[in-house]
């Protein structure tokens, strides 16, 4: 039995379960499911002969046997320890299944709707069907086909024109340490109306011993003037496999900022695609990946400048220790007649060990002439002179390396405005620092304190 067949059998299992439980599905879902399954069957899992998967071997996924999640049970206390400690509008999924118990939509403002996909489908499946799959179809990759075949749960976020959501909308995906590894194929759909604004956080985290497979597909549609900050904080358990694609369709004057932060997972692949379809559209991609042990993390980004006067700016930082492997592939395509565009890309990687490896490849395809584009990629080690200089001040070696590693990530991290995310990153990247590293606020606070008490005025 081929690897792909194992997955198709699971799909059949699921379909007959639904039938037995008489959970009917809209015909369009059934049709798409069948088409996607056929597509997946034809494609099979990608191999390293496929250009897009040249450096990432997914055999460990393809040869695996992942059961279907049965329930979303998760202790409240255990979940609390994993949840980002921020006030938020929150949807929680356990192994891909929705947990109402661990979700909180009480702060949802009017004009915004945040729902699990199952609910959105039950309420009005036609309203979902038009948008779902419009950006990421089964052709995108075998994984998107697989995801589409399993379409069932996920998150649907809809913002009416002009809606401003102040609190972050957190989509929390918990991976549970099960007796048998499970898989989930969540969908994320964001439809942001004209001039709406929101921050969406996808947070992947779980129990340390988990070894599950998450295959998520996200689609974001930004209408004119919409502003969306998207954080992906992937700190999945170290045994997890994580495959994700996020496709963004940007209308006129829309602004999309992606923070793609990957700290966890055994094998991780992210595809991030923006289509800048009308003038004034702007995409900022900030990425940070940190891998240790034998972690493998692959980031593929693609910006399509489909219209004139569109802007993209990308900065990815990779930190690899031990025998970790990283991949960065950043592609920018400027269509013919897309004049007056600006596209900047930079990627820097830090190798903390001799055995860590990175494959970094920027790709620019420019078919217009009036453009400003630049790209660059660098790979280096920690500056041993700086390590020495810090140690001569009494700072121990581990802390010195931690400080310098964080400093490397600094350019990206400085722009993270959700403190709880910055803290998670600091702790993971810097290891055990003897004091809170992010001193900026502390310093400002104590400066004020010194002023207030007049202590500093002699």
């Amino acid at each position, binding site marked *: 039995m081929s690897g792909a067949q194992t997955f198709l059998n699971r799909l059949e299992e699921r379909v007959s379960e639904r039938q037995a439980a008489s959970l009917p599905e809209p015909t369009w879902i059934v049709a798409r499911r069948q088409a996607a399954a056929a597509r997946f069957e034809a494609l099979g899992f990608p191999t390293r002969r496929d250009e897009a998967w040249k450096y990432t071997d997914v055999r460990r996924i393809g040869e695996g046997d992942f059961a279907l999640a049965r329930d979303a049970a998760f202790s409240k206390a255990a979940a609390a320890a994993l949840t980002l400690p921020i006030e938020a509008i929150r949807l929680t999924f356990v192994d891909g299944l929705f947990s109402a118990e661990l979700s909180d939509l009480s702060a949802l403002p009017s004009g915004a709707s945040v729902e699990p996909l199952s609910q959105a489908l039950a309420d009005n499946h036609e309203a979902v069907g038009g948008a779902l799959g419009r950006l990421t179809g089964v052709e995108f990759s075998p994984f998107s086909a697989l995801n589409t075949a399993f379409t069932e749960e996920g998150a649907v976020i809809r913002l009416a024109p002009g809606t401003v959501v102040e609190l972050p909308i957190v989509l929390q995906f918990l991976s549970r340490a099960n007796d048998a590894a499970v898989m989930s194929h969540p969908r994320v759909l964001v439809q942001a109306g004209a001039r709406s604004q929101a921050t969406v956080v996808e947070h992947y985290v779980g129990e340390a011993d988990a070894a599950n497979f998450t295959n998520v597909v996200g689609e974001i549609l930004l209408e004119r003037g919409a502003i969306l900050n998207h954080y992906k904080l992937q700190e999945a358990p170290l045994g997890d496999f994580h495959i994700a694609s996020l496709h963004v369709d940007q209308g006129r004057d829309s602004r999309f900022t992606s923070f793609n932060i990957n700290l966890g997972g055994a094998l991780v692949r992210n595809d991030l695609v923006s289509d800048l379809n009308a003038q004034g559209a702007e995409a900022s991609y900030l990425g940070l990946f940190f891998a240790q042990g034998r972690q493998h993390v692959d980031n593929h980004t693609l910006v399509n400048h489909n219209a004139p006067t569109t802007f993209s700016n990308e900065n990815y930082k990779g930190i690899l220790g031990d025998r970790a492997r990283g991949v960065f592939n950043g592609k920018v395509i400027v269509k013919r007649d897309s004049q007056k565009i600006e596209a900047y890309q930079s990627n820097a990687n830090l190798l903390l060990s001799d055995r860590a490896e990175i494959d970094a490849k920027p790709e620019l395809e420019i078919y217009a002439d009036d453009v400003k584009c630049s790209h660059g990629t660098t790979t280096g080690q920690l500056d041993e002179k700086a390590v020495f200089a810090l*140690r*001569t001040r009494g700072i121990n070696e581990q802390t010195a390396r931690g400080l310098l590693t964080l400093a490397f990530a600094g350019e990206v991290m400085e722009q993270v405005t959700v403190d709880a995310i910055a803290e998670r990153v600091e702790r993971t990247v810097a290891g055990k620092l*003897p004091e809170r590293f992010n001193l900026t606020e502390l*310093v400002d606070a104590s400066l004020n304190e010194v002023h207030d008490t007049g202590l500093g005025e002699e």
Partner: protein
Amino acid sequence: MLEVKDLHVTVEGKEILKGLSLTVNPGEVHAIMGPNGAGKSTLSAVIAGNEGYEVTSGSITFEGQDVLEMEIEERAQAGLLLGFQYPVEIPGVKNVYLLKAALNAQRAARGEGEMPAPEFMKLVREKLAYMKMDPSFLQRAVNEGFSGGEKKRNEILQMLVLQPKLAMLDEIDSGLDIDAMKVVAEGVNSLRDSERAILMVTHYQRLLDYIEPDYVHVLVDGRIVKSGDKTLALELESRGYEWVTEESAA
């Protein structure tokens, strides 16, 4: 407090220090002078723990402890601090992080807890004012884009915060204009007391006008060939190094 005995040091197979001995007691200020390439920076770098140098024989003890057995950071925590001739730029690490991490490391080594933030900020601001440095320096990356003079002030700022028992200053006067020199010298002088000692490397009498040494040593070709009091520096200033070399060869 510092005892260097018959120290031999090689770099990439080349012998730089060829039997150097030096004793520094608490309360003393020592100046080391000598021609370029004599081994002055090598001496302070070896004491600080730079791993690029190989000590082939001899010993260094600090307050009875074998310095050569200590980790780089342990030396600093014990109160041995080097002010670099060429301070390193450390992009992304803010000055205030370095100061806080360094001070807390030193306190931890002494079994003390972290200094509370307000107390720390008060201390740092006092020392900054002393060095006539703008508070904005705290938020800047260590030495990044600093002028030569600012780098040197920054080295002394670290000393003032960390209060070393033995401060080693390698050409702290190079690249300083006269006003900066005064500020730096004042900073260094504030470290002087009966418990502490200073070992400074310089080429110029000018610094010694501001920081008066108790002893002046002449280091030539890996050895201290002559020692004296501060008048020796004046003599070197007017006569150069050659006569010392000839005298010692004789």
